């Protein structure tokens, strides 16, 4: 309030009024200057020189100073200045180097007063002495500054900058005799008007031309300079060396700079290129303009505050041939629109959050929504130009990290790594995956796997009593499993992982789990016995051609397994399913050339159903058909997969899709499958689970997906003996007719990971070498070298 009263007194009781307005000029303006009474403005340009009266609602043309029939070059103005003491005195700088003074008091139409033709090139700037009535200063492209006494015909003194063109000259308000000049080479010079021989002080202010400068109206030692380097610098000239106190970064070269009246730290700038806007900056917040005027459609060439004590009216002239009056309260405020917060969800469920400190510091930071942020200033009582500066805004940055195990994405990684997707009988896969899910506390998912197992693999391992119980209950409708184990009971809660009431299903699923673990154990037993028989070669992915051997093993395998089943006939539906799906052999083929992550036991196991189905096919048909129509479940399972996908658990959708394979594939359209696959692969890659992602790509049946691996992947193999590139025909070198990269342990060709000792260059399958080294540190090839592996 105190401040406001000072403004009105400064305006001698008559506060300025007006609104944002503009008027069209006949020609582009080069410069403007305001009369001391704040009611008139002069506009000068190459072909315009007019005085306008500023009225409440509009500009009114008052006087055209461009008289005479023949336009003279003297009237082509680069700059204009109105004397701040004498309302009838004006000076213009002409592009032909002439400085002209105008006396509005002359009775004739031609107000031209005096003509100084001393400069040889364009005069860039003219400036009256702030207190002395007759002293005029000019700065020209020719590198000279001249001081004129209007009572004399010639210049009083000439100042040579000794450098390049002069862009601006400004009398100091603080020192009677001092003026500053800026140059195209980036220098600023300080002169004493009494000493034309040399400057008092010189310093380099900018990179490139310094287009403008302005002395601070109150802080008399401050000089603001603006340059082509897009910067406005504020210099403290009171110290021995000019000290840069502030630096404002603008977005374009600075053509004009003007301190805002009554606002110690505000200044207005405009640019001569690219940018048409006028900005008002608080020099203490040098990155964001405090206000922005966007009225002009072309470069703004002149700006002037209407009254030296009124901070809210800004006048501007532009190349778009308009003269504008801007009201500060109508300015757009980029700060207000700027987003004060940044928020990003991380991969692991962590959140990065940056917010303006005032928003997060105290509760008072909370402000009600005002509806319209662009003009919030309308709702304020009055703009207080000297409102206490809020201080340089800063943000607090913090990352909210998930505590391990509390809903972070670790479950995803664990699940992805531990799920078994192929290489074992369906029942085992389901059991295994159910176990994984259960161990991670994802009970709904675990149950889904268990159900899938029951649906597709028969209740083979469920003890007879239990099974017959459920069968008996549901025998009337022929859907025992569905009745007692309703999908709907489980599915809804899956996304949220909450424990639903599972009273009914609980006991059953538990028994199933028990059984499944039992199977796992028996299987492991089998594997171990098997492992001793089978050459360890199968540990790697070079099993081609050895399928026969596996076949030989299979009957033995199945036989050993079958006695374990309590009700062997219950296992038939699984076999039935596999027979039912047409491309049984193709399935086999897939297995053969895909990498067997789970190892040799997987191979052996995957072959089991195929093999055994031949003998049991007739029985299973009879059993199955009578109970369940083949497609009965698939629709339901597809729905379930879609549900999982919609809940964001595409992992489940893809895993089930892969595990069930042909059983459900045909019921889901290709595009959706592809979408699931790409989404899941993308997710896996995000978590750097490259192996899993590769496995998924390989196991996928969608052509678009499985080709992902092949695109832009080339494997070049050179012979290890003769160093020649190998032909594509096989692992035998054409040239030296030897097998390349033989494993020193098993004497087979290594097609996967080859590890070798750098000392003797013998090596082989990674697993074999590792195993070998457990027992001996000598080279397996028998060369006697003590192999070293890091």
């Amino acid at each position, binding site marked *: 309030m105190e401040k406001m009263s000072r403004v009105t007194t400064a305006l001698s009781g008559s506060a300025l009024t007006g609104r944002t307005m503009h008027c069209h000029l006949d020609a582009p303006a080069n410069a403007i200057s305001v009369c001391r009474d704040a009611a008139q403005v002069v506009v000068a340009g190459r072909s315009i020189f007019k005085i306008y009266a500023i009225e409440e609602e509009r500009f009114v043309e008052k006087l055209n100073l461009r008289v005479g029939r023949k336009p003279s070059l003297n009237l082509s103005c680069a700059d204009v200045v109105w004397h701040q003491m004498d309302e009838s005195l004006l000076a213009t700088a002409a592009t032909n180097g002439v400085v002209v003074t105008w006396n509005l008091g002359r009775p004739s139409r031609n107000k031209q007063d005096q003509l100084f033709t001393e400069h040889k090139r364009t005069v860039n700037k003219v400036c009256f002495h702030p207190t002395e009535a007759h002293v005029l200063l000019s700065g020209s492209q020719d590198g000279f500054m001249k001081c004129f006494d209007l009572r004399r015909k010639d210049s009083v003194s000439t100042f040579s900058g000794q450098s390049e063109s002069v862009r601006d000259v400004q009398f100091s308000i603080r020192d009677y005799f001092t003026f500053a000049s800026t140059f195209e080479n980036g220098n600023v010079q300080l002169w004493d008007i009494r000493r034309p021989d040399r400057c008092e002080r010189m310093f380099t202010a900018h990179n490139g031309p310094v287009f403008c400068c302005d002395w601070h109206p109150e802080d008399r030692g401050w000089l603001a300079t603006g340059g082509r380097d897009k910067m406005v610098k504020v210099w403290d000239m009171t110290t021995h060396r000019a000290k840069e106190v502030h630096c404002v970064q603008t977005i374009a070269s600075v053509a004009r700079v003007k301190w805002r009246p009554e606002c110690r730290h505000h200044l207005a700038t405009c640019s001569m290129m690219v940018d048409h806007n006028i900005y008002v900056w608080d020099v203490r917040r040098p990155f*964001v303009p405090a206000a922005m005027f966007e009225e002009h459609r072309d470069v703004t060439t002149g700006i002037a505050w209407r009254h030296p004590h009124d901070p809210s009216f800004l006048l501007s002239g532009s190349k778009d041939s308009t003269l504008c009056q801007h009201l500060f309260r109508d300015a757009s405020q980029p700060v207000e629109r700027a987003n004060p917060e*940044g928020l990003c969800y991380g991969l692991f469920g962590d959140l990065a*959050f940056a917010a303006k400190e005032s928003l997060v510091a105290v509760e008072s930071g909370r402000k009600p929504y005002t509806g319209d942020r662009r003009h919030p200033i309308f709702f304020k009582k009055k703009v207080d130009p000297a409102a206490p500066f809020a201080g340089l805004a800063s*943000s607090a940055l913090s*990352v909210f990290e998930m505590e391990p195990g509390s809903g972070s994405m670790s479950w995803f990684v664990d699940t992805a790594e531990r799920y078994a997707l192929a290489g074992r009988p369906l029942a085992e896969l389901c059991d295994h995956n159910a176990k994984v899910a259960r161990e991670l506390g994802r009970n709904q998912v675990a149950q889904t796997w268990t159900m899938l197992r029951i649906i597709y693999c028969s209740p083979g391992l469920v003890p007879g009593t239990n099974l017959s119980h459920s069968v008996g209950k549901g025998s009337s409708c022929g859907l025992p499993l569905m009745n007692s184990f309703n999908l709907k009971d489980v599915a809804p809660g899956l996304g949220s992982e909450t424990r639903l009431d599972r009273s009914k299903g609980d006991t059953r699923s538990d028994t199933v789990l028990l059984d499944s673990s039992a199977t796992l154990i028996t299987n492991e037993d089998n594997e171990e016995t098997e492992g001793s028989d089978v050459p360890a070669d199968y540990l790697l992915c070079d099993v081609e051609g050895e399928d026969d051997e596996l076949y030989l093993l299979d009957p033995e395998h199945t036989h050993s397994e079958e006695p374990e089943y309590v009700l062997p006939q219950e296992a038939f539906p699984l076999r039935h399913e596999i027979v039912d799906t047409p491309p049984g052999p193709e399935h086999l083929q897939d297995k053969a050339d895909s990498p067997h992550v789970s190892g040799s036991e997987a191979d052996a196991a995957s072959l089991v159903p195929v093999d055994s189905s031949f003998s049991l096919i007739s029985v299973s048909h009879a059993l199955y058909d009578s109970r369940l129509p083949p497609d009965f479940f698939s629709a339901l399972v597809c729905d379930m997969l879609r549900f999982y996908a919609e809940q964001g658990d595409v992992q489940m959708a893809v895993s089930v899709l892969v595990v069930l394979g042909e059983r459900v594939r045909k019921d889901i359209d290709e595009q959706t499958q*592809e979408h699931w696959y*790409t989404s899941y692969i993308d997710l896996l890659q995000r978590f750097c689970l490259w192996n899993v992602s590769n496995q998924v790509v390989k196991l996928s049946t969608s052509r678009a997906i499985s080709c992902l691996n092949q695109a832009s992947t080339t494997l070049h193999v050179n012979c290890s003996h003769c160093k020649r590139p190998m032909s594509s025909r096989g692992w035998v070198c054409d040239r030296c007719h030897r097998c390349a990269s033989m494993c020193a342990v098993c004497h087979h060709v290594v097609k996967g990971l080859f590890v070798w000792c750098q000392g003797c260059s013998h090596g082989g399958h990674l697993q074999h070498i590792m195993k070998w080294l457990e027992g001996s540190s000598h080279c397996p090839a028998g060369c006697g070298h003590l192999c070293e592996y890091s």
Partner: protein
Amino acid sequence: MFVARSIAADHKDLIHDVSFDFHGRRMATCSSDQSVKVWDKSESGDWHCTASWKTHSGSVWRVTWAHPEFGQVLASCSFDRTAAVWEEIVGESNDKLRGQSHWVKRTTLVDSRTSVTDVKFAPKHMGLMLATCSADGIVRIYEAPDVMNLSQWSLQHEVSCKLSCSCISWNPSSSRAHPPMIAVGSDDGSPNAMAKVQVFEYNENTRKYAKAETLMTVTDPVHDIAFAPNLGRSFHILAIATKDVRIFTLKPVRKELTSSGGPTKFEIQVVAQFDNHNSQVWRVSWNITGTVLASSGDDGCVRLWKANYMDNWKCTGILKGNGSPVSGSSQQGNANPSLGSNIPNLQHSLNGSSAGRKHS
């Protein structure tokens, strides 16, 4: 359930955006101080600033990572009317910069005549593309035809939105069934109540982006917009930060029913609307699976929203921005009367007919 880790960002002005990279191990921040900082997560989980450089000559509004397949690439956009693409170069072995990384400007996109308010890379399957939007209401889509040459970007599309744009979001769906789609929000504050969110879809036949939908119900300035990651959903979820948090679903109407060739028609539904921030909402961000939405507002809090199995969105957590004790419990969320519960629930069970049995 959350632990706040405060980071001394040392930006000299407001931070306007934070962005994690594809793998979640790097973070970029941008600020009004015209700089971008890159933060790397150490083994111990601390974030270290590994690069900080002046990117623009005005406030930097947004920073975003490209898919790592294209290298370590950032895009930024600024008040200075440009957007820029940056690439990290790891020093060669010969000079003293060995092992050190620095960021090189690959291109400056100067087509806008006004402040560029948002920049976003397109989903990876579309190639190396990015979209910018600017205060003059134009969305520009650029493409780098050669992914190895990040300095060559060609302006592919200019889409006029008629309103000052503040934010854009690509539909991240990788499904072939979903053509490229981009949603644009406007923070235009003029009193006329125009719809502030438009959705544009790429038309294969005309090879242009055409307006597919306008969300007529959003008439207040929009400050952020985000499509949820689509991991196999048939429909899209769009979150909007305006005076409140809103979540929309856009369900494509089956093609057979619409005239072929035209833009996809959508069935749009507001599934949630929350004014719990009690103020302007500035940012929305989805988690990686598109199941949890985080929003931040003028109240300085981050709120987490999650749908239950009934597709009822609820607040599941509130985080204070200053890292003060975090109230992650769901009690608070439930205490707030959420508009979401008033909205007709979408039944999201396996099949609708037996959904009712659940409670019996």
